[in-house]
């Protein structure tokens, strides 16, 4: 959650968190400058905290006085005011992408300080193209998984969906499924990252590690009646006179098939 000051070789570091990336973006924006490289402690395994100087704000629990908190809140407000909705959305998507695109992102933030937030619409810029493409991939995967997540009752009866997304998007799916499930409970399990986001009795929780995987039905669990009905429906609804498996694979890439009962193992 902390961003560092630039080091002498033009490298900035952060701890891989979204808050850390937002702070780096704010730094680039407020200074109108960007680093040559960015060290991500999560992916690089580097000694992040050795590089850290004072950050614009700290978690609330660490403030010793109301004045400290007020200062931190003011700084946080500066961060939020600095970015247009579009620019903040790019920062969020790049963090979710888990791709090493921070330098390009920070150059855009520095440019935004000089020329205004509309620089994100400059598709002549190589950085904008790079970042826009990555953000598009993330958004596309969110859209896809809103449709392709498959829920079934877990060991406790809670409806759970296993996911293995390329990007770290499970949390971004929560608002959609909250609306969809109304007042019913559900859980999204990112199997790749061993993270679960659950809503039980109307309250959200997040956990990770083995606890996350415990939400899912055990391996070898037989298909239930409703899944069988769905598979029969899916087969019957295909029009054999129009078969086009290439198009099917293009629209629904093979990497998502594992958790789709209608097509898994096809």
């Amino acid at each position: 959650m902390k961003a560092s000051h630039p080091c002498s070789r033009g490298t900035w570091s952060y701890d891989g968190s979204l808050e850390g990336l937002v702070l780096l973006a704010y730094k680039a924006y407020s200074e109108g400058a960007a680093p040559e490289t960015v060290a991500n402690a999560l992916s690089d395994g580097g000694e992040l905290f050795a590089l850290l100087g004072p950050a614009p704000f700290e978690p609330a629990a660490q403030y010793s006085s109301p004045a400290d908190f007020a200062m931190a809140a003011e700084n946080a407000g500066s961060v939020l005011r600095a970015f247009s909705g579009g620019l903040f959305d790019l920062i969020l998507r790049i963090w979710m992408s888990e791709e090493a695109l921070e330098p390009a992102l920070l150059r855009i933030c520095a440019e935004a300080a000089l020329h205004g937030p509309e620089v994100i619409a400059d598709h002549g810029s190589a950085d904008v193209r790079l970042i826009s493409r990555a953000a598009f991939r993330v958004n596309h995967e969110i859209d896809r998984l809103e449709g392709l997540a498959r829920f079934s009752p877990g060991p406790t009866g809670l409806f759970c969906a296993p996911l293995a997304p390329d990007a770290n998007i499970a949390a971004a799916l929560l608002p959609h499924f909250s609306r969809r499930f109304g007042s019913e409970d559900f859980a999204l399990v990112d199997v790749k990252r061993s993270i679960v986001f659950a809503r039980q009795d109307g309250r959200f929780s997040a956990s990770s590690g083995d606890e996350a995987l415990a939400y899912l039905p055990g391996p070898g669990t037989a298909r239930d009646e409703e899944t069988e009905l769905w598979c029969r429906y899916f087969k019957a609804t295909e029009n054999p006179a129009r078969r086009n498996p290439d198009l099917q694979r293009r629209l629904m890439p093979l990497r998502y098939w594992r958790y789709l009962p209608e097509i898994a193992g096809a």
Partner: protein
Amino acid sequence: MDLGEKLEILAAAARYDASCASSGSSRAGGLPGSAKSGLGASRPAGVCHSWTGDGRCVSLLKVLYSNSCHKDCAYCVNRSSAEVERASFTAEELVSLTLGFYRRNYIEGLFLSSGIFADADIVMEKLVEVARILREREGFGGYIHLKAIPGSSDKLLRKAGLYADRLSANIELPTASSLARLAPQKSGQEILGAMRFMSQAEAECREDKGRLRSTPRFAPAGQSTQLVVGASPEDDRTIIRLAGALYGRLGMRRVYYSAFVPVSTDPRLPLLKSPPLVREHRLYQADWLMRFYGFKPEEILDSGEANLSSELDPKTAWALRHPEFFPVDVERAAYAALLRVPGVGVTGAGRIVSTRRIGHIRPEDLGRMGIVMKRARYFISLGGRPLSALEPDSLRLQLADGGASQASSWAPPLQSMSANTAKTQLEFSFA
């Protein structure tokens, strides 16, 4: 017969209906007076939940209430003379399937149609009852698309519109004469009557909502329809003009084109080896030009041809017929003019407009903005200088998009009609 068997029969019977969209509506589930929000919500963009082996999106549980039908439409798999197993759901079975599939995120909602197994009102009542239970008893907020059964009463259609997000009545064939030949028990006037009623009810609802916000919505995703392409001899010009009229005069949200799949050996039907998929594709392209690119129906085939080219997409074909319109200067042209350039889509045109507000556009930027330069380069200029010379004759070959290679799966209509014949054949009256 168990539920699984019924589901297979009634899903297979509904698969020739092309529509599976769940877009255009936004609602949340819940029961009046209950603090709890109900299962289901729909949103304007819709969601695709799977893709079948034919590459078509599965968004809704698309089934018939019953495939028993007393009509004998030559092109229909459920016609009364067809030797197929017949089945019917009960309302409770459909409700249970919809909620169960929805909870598992298999579907976005229900698409319910039916064979005409009884009087139109009785069939319509059955469909409305399913929607009523879902909305009023279960508090279901997902998407519901109901078929409007032509000939059913206005009262039932109005009720259907209050529960459904979208209503549709399939026009099926482009002219009344073809309808009379291939579906003699169907009435074009009844179909158009249902469409007209839905269009008026939607307009009234909009007007009332302006005065009183609590006015219940009527089919907020509007109405759609479907045309079977290739079962009758009408040309593309007739189909496009009809679609244009449906959009313009009846406020249709969407016209679907379904390539005719030979399902019977009825002598009234053409002998096709396979569905005319290229023709269907071209009609969808033409449809998009009308809906998103500002083309009028009469512009799409404006040089006397009766059918769309199988080699060139309709926009490129239009551009080659209108060299006087080009080159379009990407630095100065209006958004509407940019949309007319082959290789420039809605997104690309938007990017050009937003980028040129910031600075100059270089030729190398265009490809990066998503402009398909191998097509667009012949039709644009930058700073007054064309990027490539526009020579329509040589370009025809160069810009052919592969439709020709797929033409083996496409056969032209049985009879080619002249433009004048086509004009007189547009017999459906919208007055």
